[in-house]
């Protein structure tokens, strides 16, 4: 049987992959996808700890995280569309007008 540690290591690996994606990629859509990977890693942690503690609260928190992720994806993609209309690019380095 896989133990708690197995799941936590898997979750850590997924979170690190998401972090690497945010830093490495230069495409706004891929960065949003990496954020989704990180959210899912955290979701897995919540479910695993809920299972280990024998409570449903972990699953309910995951339910709320999924809702917030949906809202974040909708607003984030709307922003991406707006930015793309302005600059014809998805490279975050091209939106540096406010950079000091």
């Amino acid at each position: 049987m896989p133990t708690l540690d197995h799941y936590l290591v898997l979750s850590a690996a997924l979170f690190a992959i998401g972090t690497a994606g945010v830093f490495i990629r230069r495409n706004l859509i891929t960065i949003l996808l990496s954020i989704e990977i990180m959210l899912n890693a955290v979701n897995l942690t919540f479910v695993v700890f809920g299972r280990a503690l024998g409570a449903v609260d972990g699953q309910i928190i995951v339910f709320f995280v999924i809702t917030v992720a949906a809202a974040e994806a909708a607003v984030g993609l709307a922003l991406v569309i707006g930015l793309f209309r302005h600059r014809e690019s998805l490279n975050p380095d091209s939106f540096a007008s406010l950079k000091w």
Partner: protein
Amino acid sequence: MVLFYLFGATAVVASLLVIAQRNPIYSVLLLIASFGALSGLYVLLDAPFLAVIQIIVYAGAIMVLFLFVVMLLNAPHEDTDYDERLRGAEGPGAISTRSGSMRFGALLAAALIVELVWALTEGEGEAGLFPGESVSSVRAIGRSLFTDYALAFEVTSVLILVAMVGAVLLARRDVPAARGGVM
């Protein structure tokens, strides 16, 4: 155990390929595969409700939203003409900053995973075998959701409304004021 390694390996490999792909459409499709593997892990963890929610909401709704946007924006690859012009204008410096940020990102991710695994293995306490009984029936989830978490549930509905209005407002084209646009 076999299923855990199968689903876990699928999730990790698919996520890595999401990061490695240059075409955003492939990234989105691979992320759906990763979410499917995670939903299998939820089933293994006695959370069938979340597994179904994961498929319906994440893979079914959010990823389709991403796919719509990728296709709406005509799926520009990472190295578009704009980037080429930018790189040509700034000379080799731009390339070196890009590879520098890439090395920094990879280093940061490696440090993060080493630190997390170290924290997990160094921790005190018994490495948890899960308790035999599981409480996570859909009935228990629903009861807890509509009693203990009722306020959070209602606030979530307001959040979704706000997000919907905000997305429509941000993504629509500017209406000329002469035509009676509110903005």
